[in-house]
Structures are given as C-alpha cells and as structure tokens.
C-alpha cells in the first residue's frame, strides 16, 4: 500500500498584478496519507494554491515542501484538474503513457479497472462521458504519482449521480492506496464525503479561518460540522 509524502505550506504572500496580495500568511501541513480539503468561495485562490503545491506556480513568498523538497523540485504529483484535461488526440492508454511511458499493457488495464473503466484502453476522450473522463483523469494522476493526489474541484459540473459514483471511486482509491491528498473545493459536501481534515479559507487576502478534523461520523454529520464552522469561524 502506497503512502505519500507530507506537504508543508508556509506562505507569507503572493501578488499578481493587483496591489492586494492573493494570500495572507498561510501556514499548514498535510501529514503523509492524510486527506485534507481546502474549502473556500470561488476566486479565493484555492486552485492557485494547489498549483503552488504541485510545483507549477513558483511566484510566491515563503516555502512549500513536498516530502521535504521544495515543491517544484519534488517528483510530479498526481494532479486531477477541474476539467479532465485529457489529450483528445490520444486514446485512454496513450493518455496514461503520456505521464508514465514505461507502463505495460497489463498495468494500464489494471489502472483503468481500478477507476471503473475496464476495457476502455483504445477509447478516445470524446468517446467517454464527462464522468468517465474524470475517472480517466484520476487514473492518469495515479499513474503519475500514486502517493500524492492534488484534486482541483474534481466533481464540478457533473450531475448528482455521476458525483456519487465518482466519489465512491475516489474513496476506494484512498482506501487502497493511502495517498496524501489535497482536495480543493467550493462545496463542503465534497469534504464531508472524502476528507480527514478541513481547512477553511476566506477573505482577501485569503487566510485560514478554521482547521479541524472531521472524525469518523457519517457524511451528513460531517457536512453539518463544516457548515457550522463556516458560520462561526472562530469555533
């Protein structure tokens, strides 16, 4: 069973062109094998933060480490984008090999089986439904790095049935692989279903207004706890 690297984030600021910094002081860590959800309203900078952890965005003040290394020098993470962002000119197998060229046919079949896409090796992305494309995106992320998953709004724009199915797939993967996961979402329900701990972001510049473990309760209770914390940040 894979166990991913720990992630530490210690930001003192980040500016784009505007005078107001995107982030205030942000200091948090994600333990190896932990699933942490960053929850906050749209436009607050959650995706940017995820890109920074993934080593894609480097224009910030502070330090972000993955497994003890600066994020941009660490091995690639298993990034799952808001849109599946598959390469439409490659079939499913080739999309996986794009990030891991050494995968054997058997490994690709096993990867697709794991996310509920058996026998879809030769399918092009446009031949797959939205939910299936997200599954393929997850398979690609797992192929790139089964130890660290960075999930950027993985359920956005899907219908409720697809969200339910896809959450089950993610849950099963988390159980089997025990990866370190940073999940970014505007929807507390995503965190209630998947996360071990929640970090609430708010304000401009964005700061952490609350951080708390979710415990083993059922998703409805967990959702209630998150909503309560959003209403009373200091609690």
């Amino acid at each position, binding site marked *: 069973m894979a166990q991913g690297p720990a992630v530490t984030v210690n930001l003192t600021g980040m500016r784009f062109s505007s005078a107001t910094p995107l982030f205030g002081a942000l200091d948090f860590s994600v333990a190896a094998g932990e699933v942490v959800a960053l929850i906050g309203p749209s436009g607050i900078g959650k995706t940017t933060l995820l890109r920074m952890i993934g080593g894609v965005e480097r224009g910030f003040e502070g330090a972000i480490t993955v497994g003890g290394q600066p994020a941009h020098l660490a091995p*690639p*993470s298993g*990034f799952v*984008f808001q849109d599946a962002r598959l*390469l439409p000119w*490659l079939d499913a197998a080739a999309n996986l090999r794009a990030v891991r060229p050494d995968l054997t046919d058997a490994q690709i079949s096993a990867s697709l089986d794991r996310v509920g896409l058996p026998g879809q090796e030769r399918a092009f992305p*446009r031949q797959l439904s939205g939910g299936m494309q997200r599954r393929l995106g997850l398979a690609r992320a797992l192929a790139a790095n089964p130890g660290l998953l960075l999930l950027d709004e993985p359920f956005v724009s899907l219908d409720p049935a697809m969200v339910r199915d896809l959450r089950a797939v993610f849950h099963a993967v988390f159980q089997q692989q025990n990866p370190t996961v940073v999940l970014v979402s505007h929807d507390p329900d995503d965190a209630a279903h998947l996360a071990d701990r929640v970090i609430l972001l708010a304000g401009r510049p964005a700061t952490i207004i609350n951080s708390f473990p979710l415990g083993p309760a059922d998703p409805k209770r967990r959702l209630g706890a998150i909503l309560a914390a959003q209403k009373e940040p200091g609690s």
Partner: protein
Amino acid sequence: MAPRGNGTRLEWLSLPLLLLIWQVAAMVAASRFLPSPLVVAGEIADLVIRGHMLADFGQTLSRAVAGFVIAMLLGGVLGFLLGRINTLDRLFGPWVLVGLNLPAIVVAIICYIWLGLSEVALILAVVINKTPLVTTTIREGVRSFLPEYEEMAAAFRLPLLRRIRLIYLPQLMPFVMTAARTGLSLIWKIVLVFEVLGSDGGVGFRVSIFFQYFDMAGILAYTSVFVAMVMVFEHGVLRPVERRVVRWRRDQP
C-alpha cells in the same frame, strides 16, 4: 442535402463531364488551337515515348519537392519561434510581412541575376516565396496552443521532447496541413513560371517552347499530365495524411 453516396457518384462524373464538354467544344471549333481530348491523349503518348515528358516532369517534380520540403522545415521552425518568443516576433514579424508581399517573379529574377540560371537559384526563389506563408500559418498555430495543456505538462513534469511530440505537434498538425496544401498549390505554379523564366528543362520550360510554335496539343498534353499529377498527389498523399491526422476528431459517439 444530397446523400453521401449520391455526392460521391457526382464527383466521379465531374471529370468525364469536363472531358465531354472539351470534346464537344473541339468538334465545334474544329481548330488546331483547340485539339480534342483524344488528340491530346495521343500527343501525351507520343511525348512520353519520343519526347522529353518524363524527364521534364522528373525535373519539375524534384524542384517542387525540394522547395516544398526546405520551405516547410524552415517556415515551421521560424513560425514556431515567432509564435513562442514575443521579442523575436516583434523584431522579425515585419520581415515576414515583407516576404509575403514580395512579387514571386521579382524574387526569381533577383535570384537568377545573383546566382545565375541554376537549380540552386530556382529552388532558392521557390523557398523565399513559400517560406513566409508557412511561417505565418505555423505562427498562428503556435499562438493558438491551449495554455491548459501547457499547465498539464508542467504539473506532470513532461520533458521537452515529450511535450513537443504529444502536446505541441498534435495541436499544430491542422496548421501544418493547411500550410502544406496552400504551399503546394503555390509551389506547383511558381516552379513552372520560374522554369519559363530561366531553365533548361522542366514542364514550364517545355511549355514555353510549345508556346513559341503555337503547339496547343503539346501545351494541353503537358497541362493535362500536370493536373493529373497534382490530383494524384492530393488524393494519394495529402488526403490520406489529413485523414490520419484528424482521426481522433472523427472517432466520436
């Protein structure tokens, strides 16, 4: 809209219809300045057996292919660089514009004056005429790259060669095909003009000789074979390549 099968049958009827109109026009005109398709067919056979037709077409084809390949490679690299590096584009973009507006015949004359009536001068003139067109098309292709794929490549740390092969080239292929098609149609024509202007062989050179004798059968014989060659290239090479390149777009539910 006509059914696809019906449309295909109409396409097959198109050329015979043209030949029929030509035949009728030749019969009505009854002039040596408009020989019939049958006469031209006989002339083709005669020129192949006893004339220079094969050698001329070989020469023209080799010049066109050389000019095409060099211009595609050069224009491809330049277009990629100008599309990716803004400073280069600002510095050399106006040169491309100048190149696009240079009259082909002037370029050929200058090349012939500087380098003499040689193969190198002719091919260089073709390359100078064609390269700006390829550069512009490829530059547009590079500018249209989707940043989402760039971000994906950065997130998964894809090495440069894999990015080129899996991300840049597939996005560029429709533009490469456009550059190839427009470029070829241009090259076929300017090679012939340059051969008329200064060459000791080739289709253009031979047609200019026929022109001096008002030999319409010879002119139409060369023209017919030339058009046939271009169409064989279009259907035998370009279209199959294009079908393969855009295969992923057609494989939809």
